[in-house]
C-alpha cells in the first residue's frame, strides 16, 4: 500500500516538474482568451462565445498556414475569444477539409482555411472530387499570391519570350515540376502552353512534394522549370540559385518590381493565381458569415496584419462572401475546361 502511494507521489511530482518548466513560458503568454463574454452587440446571438477551431488542411509553415495563423492572431484579439489554428494535413488538403466541412458541426465554431488547390483545382482534377463548392459557404477571401516562372540561375534564356520560343520548338525537352497532374503548377503550365501554342502533351512533368522539394531540383539542373508563388521561390531567388523569367497576371508583383509580367513579354492570357480565404460547412448561420466578413474586411486594413502578409509575400485581397463565391465558381468552370482539354481530369 505504502509503496505505490509513494510512487504516485513520484509521478505527480515528476509531471508537476515538467509542468512547472512549461509554465515558465505558459504564464508569460498574454491571456488571449480572456473571459470577457462576447460583447452583446447585435440582435443576432452572441458569436463567438467560446473557442473557434480554425482548421488548416496542410502542415504548419506553408502559405495557407501562415496566413491563417496571422488571421487567427488578429481575430482572437478582435473578438476576445481564442481562435485556434489546428493543422490536419494529408490527402492534398482533402482530409482536413472533410473534417471541417462534413464531420464538424455547422455552428460556426469550426472554420476551414481554403485555397485554390483544395477547391477549384480539386474539382477540376477529379471527376468525383471529395469536396466540392456545394459543400461549403465561402465566407471571405483574405489574400492572394502571384505566380512566377523560375528556371536555373545560369539557364540560357534571357527572358520569358525567348524561353517560350524555345519551348514551342522543343516541347519534348521541357521538364517541369508539380505536386501532381492537377496541381497548382500544372494549371499554370497548361495555361501558358495554350497561350503560346506549344504542345503540352509532349512536355514532361516531374512530380515533387512541393516548392521546398522542386526548387532544389531546378537549381541543380534536374528539372527545367518550376512554377510557384513569388513567396515560395523567394529564398532560392535570393540565394541566386534560380531566376524568375516572368510573373503571371495583369501587373507586376509588388515584391518583384523588376520582373516583367508575361503579358509585357508578349504572352497573353495567363490568369492562374494563388489565393487563400476561409469557408464554413453548408448550413452555417448567416450571422456567422457576416461576422467573419466584417472582421476580415477590417483585418486587411490593419497595418500590423498587412505587414505580416508582406513578410510572407502575400498580397491582401479581401472579397466578401458573395463575390468570393462567384469568383471561385467562375474559376472552377475555367479550370475544369482547361483540365478536360488536356485530359488532366480523372
Amino acid at each position, binding site marked *: 500500500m505504502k509503496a*505505490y502511494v509513494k*510512487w504516485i507521489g*513520484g*509521478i505527480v511530482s515528476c509531471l508537476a*516538474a*515538467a509542468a512547472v*518548466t*512549461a509554465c515558465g*513560458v*505558459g504564464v*508569460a*503568454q*498574454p491571456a488571449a482568451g480572456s473571459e470577457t463574454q462576447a460583447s452583446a452587440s447585435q440582435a443576432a446571438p452572441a458569436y463567438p462565445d467560446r473557442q473557434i477551431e480554425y482548421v488548416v488542411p496542410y*502542415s*504548419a*509553415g506553408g502559405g495557407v498556414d*501562415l496566413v491563417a495563423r496571422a488571421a487567427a492572431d488578429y481575430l482572437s484579439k478582435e473578438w476576445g475569444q481564442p481562435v485556434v489554428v*489546428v*493543422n*490536419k*494535413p*494529408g*490527402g*492534398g488538403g*482533402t*482530409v482536413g477539409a*472533410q*473534417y471541417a466541412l462534413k464531420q464538424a458541426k455547422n455552428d460556426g465554431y469550426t472554420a476551414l482555411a481554403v485555397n485554390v488547390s483544395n477547391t477549384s483545382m480539386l474539382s477540376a*482534377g*477529379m471527376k468525383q472530387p*471529395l469536396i466540392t463548392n456545394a459543400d461549403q459557404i465561402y465566407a471571405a477571401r483574405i489574400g492572394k499570391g502571384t505566380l512566377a516562372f523560375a528556371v536555373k540561375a545560369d539557364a540560357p534564356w534571357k527572358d520569358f519570350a525567348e524561353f517560350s520560343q524555345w519551348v514551342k520548338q522543343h516541347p519534348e525537352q521541357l*521538364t517541369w515540376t508539380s*505536386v*501532381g*497532374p*492537377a496541381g497548382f503548377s500544372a494549371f499554370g503550365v497548361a495555361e501558358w502552353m495554350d497561350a503560346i501554342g506549344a504542345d503540352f502533351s509532349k512536355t*514532361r512533368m*516531374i*512530380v*515533387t512534394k512541393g516548392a*521546398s*522539394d522542386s526548387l*532544389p*531540383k531546378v*537549381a*541543380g*539542373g*534536374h*528539372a527545367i522549370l518550376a512554377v510557384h508563388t513569388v513567396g515560395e521561390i*523567394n*529564398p*532560392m531567388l*535570393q*540565394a*541566386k*540559385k534560380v531566376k524568375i523569367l516572368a510573373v503571371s497576371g495583369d501587373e507586376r508583383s509588388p515584391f518583384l518590381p523588376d520582373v516583367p509580367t508575361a503579358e509585357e513579354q508578349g504572352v497573353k492570357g495567363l490568369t492562374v493565381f494563388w489565393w487563400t480565404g476561409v469557408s464554413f460547412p453548408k448550413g452555417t448561420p448567416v450571422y456567422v458569415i457576416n461576422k467573419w466578413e466584417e472582421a476580415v474586411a477590417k483585418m486587411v486594413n490593419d497595418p500590423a496584419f498587412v505587414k*505580416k502578409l508582406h*513578410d*510572407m509575400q502575400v498580397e491582401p485581397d479581401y472579397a466578401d462572401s458573395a463575390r468570393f463565391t462567384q469568383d471561385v465558381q467562375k474559376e472552377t468552370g475555367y479550370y475544369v475546361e482547361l483540365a478536360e482539354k488536356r485530359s488532366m481530369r*480523372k
Partner: protein
Amino acid sequence: MDTLHLLLAGFAQAITPENLLMAALGALVGTFVGVLPGLGPTSAISILLPVTAVLEPTQGIIMLAGIYYGAMYGGSTTAILLNIPGEISSVPTCLDGYPLAKKGKGGPALGISAIASFAAGILGVVGLVCFAPILADQALKFGPPEYFALMILALTLMVSLSGGSLIKAFLMGAFGYTLSLVGLGPSSGMPRFDYGIPLLDGGFDMISIIIGLFAIAEVLKGIGEKRLATVIGAPGNVYPSKSDWKKSAAPTIRGGLVGFFLGLLPGCSAAITSFLAYDLEKKVSKHPEQFGKGAIEGVAAPEAANNATSSAGFIPLFSLGIPSSPPLAILLAGFMIYGLTPGPVLFEQHPAFVWTVIASMFVGNAMLLVLNLPLVWVWVKLTKVPYGIMAPVILMFCTIGAYSVRNSLFDVAVAFAFGGLGYLFYTYRWPVVPLVLCFILGPLLEESFIQTMVMSSGDVAIVLQRPISLVILLAAAALMLVSLALNRRTQKRVREERQRGADVA
C-alpha cells in the same frame, strides 16, 4: 575570419543570462517531453511550437533549437530504458540499448548516448559553421537518379536487420512499403489502397505506426508477461567504464561522419542515417553477432549519427530553406511564424540573429550534457515505478503523441491497431524493424524512381550513366555481398541465442 568574428559576437549574445536561460529551458522542456514515452521530437516540437510563439524571435528560436536537441535526447532515453523510440531515428538505438538496459547496463548506455550525441552534435555544428555555403551547393547536385541509387543502398540494410529469417524480413519490408503507398499516388494524384474510405486518403502517419509497433506493443508484452517493474535488472553506474569509452570512441566518430554528410542531403533524414551508421558499425565490428544483444557500439554509432544529422540538417535549412526531416519541417514552420524566411538572405540580412542561434546550439549541446549526465539516474529511477501504474500512463501519453502530430483521432486508432499487430509480430518472431525502414524509404524510393524515369524519358540506364549514382550503386552491391556473408555467419549464433529467449527481433 569574418565568420569567426561573427561567431564570437554570436557567443556574446548567446551567453547573456536571458538567452542562456532560454536555451536551458528549451533543452529541459524538450527532454521532459521527449522522455515521456510515446512523445518524440516531432510531437514535442509541434506541441511546444505555439508556446514559444509568444517570445521574441531570437529567444524563441533559441528555445526551439533547445527543444529540438532535448527532445532528440529524451527520445533516446525511452528507447534505451523502455524499448520505446519516440521517433524512427531512435529505433536503431533500441536494438542494442534495450538489451543493455535489461542486462543492467542501462546507466552506461544512457551515458554513452549522451556523450556520443554531444560529440556528434558539436561536430555537426562545427561543420555548419565552416562549410555551410559550400556544402549546400554540393547537395544540389543530388538529383532523382542519385536519390534512387541511395534508396537502393538503404534497401540492402534489410538483410542485416533481418534478425532471423530472411524471408520473413523481406515480407515485413514489403508490408512496410505497402503501408507507405496508402494515400494519394504521387504521379497521378489519385487515391490508392483507400477502398473508398476517405480517411485513408491522407495515408498513415509514421509516428503513429512507430508508437503502435514499439510503445504500445511493448506495454502489451509487459502485460502478457505480467511484468512487475518497468525494467528488469539494476541500472548500474551512469558513468561509462573505461572499456565502454574505448569501445565507443571510434563508432561515435564514424557515426558522426556518416550522419553529418548524409544529413546534408535534403530528404535524407536522421531515420535513414542512424540505420546506416548502425549497419556500418555492425559490418566493421569484429563481433557482429554481439549486435542486437547489447553492444555498446550499437548505441554510440546511431546516437552520434542521429545528432550529427540533426545539426547537419540546419545547413540546407539555413542556407536554402529546405527542411530535411519532419521535426526540422516543424522548426521551419517556427521560423516562418516569426516572419523569418530561412535562406542565404537570412545570413545577409540578420547575421546577428543567425550566429546567435548557431552559438546557442553549442551552448545548448553543452547544456544538455551537463543537465543530462546527472539527470540520468532520475530517468533510471523512473523505471522502478510499478508496472501497473506505468503501463496505463504510457498508453495515455502514446495517445497524445499519436494525436498531436496531425490532430487526428484516426492516427490514434492506427497506433492502437499497430500495437496489437506489433504484439502478434513479436510473439511469432516477425521482425518489425524492416517494416519501419521500408515504410520510411517507400515514398522516397517511389518518387525518385518516377522522377528518374521522367527525366530520362523512360530509360533506366541514366542511373548508371551519372557518376555519383553509379558509385552509390556499386557501393550498394558491395554492401549486399558483405551483408549476405555476415548474415550467414551470424545466423547460427542468432539461432542459438534465440533458444535462450533473447529479443532479436
